[in-house]
């Protein structure tokens, strides 16, 4: 299809000027975009209020779609469950019986634990979550991995707080607005999390690769002690995450560590909880320049 003849300027001065103005305005727009982009890089939080207000408006719709997503997940799981139901049922029954025995043992251990703790005078260290909310959306077209949470400043959420699902760590709060907040998921290529192997004290960094997997980078280089199937938990270093929360399972070994898969997939989790900063003072002091003294 050829463009309308009216869009050809020909000898008309007026039409020529309007074409020129069009190009000029578009070029100015591109320049403005480049300027705003530069500001976004220089001061990443410069437009967070604007973005936060926009997400606040869209958040109620996200609640609906989150509920629908959970529902459809359940339907799919139900259909999948019918596949080889008989043999699965038998295996599960066996597992339940074993689990009952283990549960009884665990109860005994718990009792003993409580007794020993009372002897030592330790208080219960279970963390009370700041709030529990749904993941209402994500940056699904961008190469960055952000998710949006349906809880914000009014629920007590603050920047830096860890977000976890019942299975393990999901990410960390990046920006907060009134009723929603933006979360940096572990799979984002800018996310780094200090972890350790659950079985011993092998410490490492879990870095997002941007394609859904985590890169495990060992801190002590040398012989790579990792095995496929190792579970990594948070180590507590840095002060953001409390130690001992599941993060990832190693799926491939590389010379300097390995590649791991997430334990807690955000899209599979119904509700997530926001926890307070584990060591708020440590985070604060790490953010304070050396020249300034920490106030007591």
């Amino acid at each position: 299809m050829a463009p309308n003849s009216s869009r050809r300027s020909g000898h008309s001065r007026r039409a020529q000027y309007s074409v020129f103005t069009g190009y000029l305005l578009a070029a100015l727009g591109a320049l403005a975009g480049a300027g705003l982009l530069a500001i976004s890089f220089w001061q990443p939080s410069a437009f967070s209020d604007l973005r936060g207000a926009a997400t606040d408006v869209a958040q109620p719709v996200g609640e609906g779609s989150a509920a629908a997503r959970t529902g459809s997940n359940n339907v799919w799981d139900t259909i999948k469950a019918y596949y080889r139901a008989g043999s699965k049922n038998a295996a599960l029954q066996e597992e339940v019986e074993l689990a009952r025995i283990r549960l009884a043992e665990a109860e005994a251990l718990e009792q003993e634990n409580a007794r020993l703790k009372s002897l030592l005078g330790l208080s219960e260290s279970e963390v009370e979550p700041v709030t529990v909310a749904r993941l209402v959306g994500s940056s699904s077209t961008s190469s960055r991995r952000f998710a949006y949470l349906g809880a914000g400043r009014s629920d007590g959420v603050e920047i830096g707080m860890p977000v976890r699902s019942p299975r393990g760590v999901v990410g960390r709060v990046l920006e907060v607005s009134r009723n929603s907040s933006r979360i940096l998921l572990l799979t984002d290529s800018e996310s780094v999390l200090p972890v350790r192997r659950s079985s011993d004290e092998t410490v490492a960094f879990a870095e997002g690769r941007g394609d859904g997997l985590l890169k495990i980078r060992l801190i002590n280089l040398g012989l790579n002690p990792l095995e496929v199937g190792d579970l990594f938990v948070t180590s507590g270093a840095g002060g953001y995450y409390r130690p001992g929360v599941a993060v990832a399972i190693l799926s491939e070994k590389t010379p300097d560590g390995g590649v791991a898969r997430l334990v807690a997939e955000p899209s599979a989790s119904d509700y997530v909880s926001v926890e307070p900063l584990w060591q708020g003072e440590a985070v604060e002091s790490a953010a304070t320049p050396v020249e300034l003294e920490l106030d007591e």
Partner: protein
Amino acid sequence: MERLSPSARSDRYGSRINRTQSPLRASIVPYASILIASLLPLFLLADVMPLVPPLGFLLFLSWRIMRPGLLPMWVGVPLGAFDDLFSGQPFGSAILLWSLTMIAFEAIETRFPWRGFWQDWFTAGLAIVLYVLLAMAVSGAALTTHQLIAAVPQVLLSVLLYPIISRMVAWLDRFRLSRSRRIG
């Protein structure tokens, strides 16, 4: 008296007797559809890799190709700003890239005034590939091979989706210009 065929007094937008196009609808539909398409991917949860095509950009592209001159040249600024609010990209990236798209398409159109479906698809496909790559470059994270590999499905899906999106836009255009207002 001769009988006229029933379609003689109507065009593809409906009956021409006693009906006219609604100016409000004609001006709102393109913008509303692009804004809604920008907003939609927010509600899908993609935790592993970017799988959803940049729907806002696809609709913007389709409207630009289908109706040259309908969107003013500077339209990349407001529409891009809206897209940036929800896309997770740093603010300004869509403003920049959508404005550049407008300029590029205007230049391509003066160079090749006659075009058809295949050429449109080729141009749009090229624009989509460049857009995804450039958006990745300005996303604020360092580019890695893993990210590039992860973007391949998204790019393929977007390019393949273009013909369907342009049919949808054609339908929206018929809806936009349908004779709905009653005169007299």
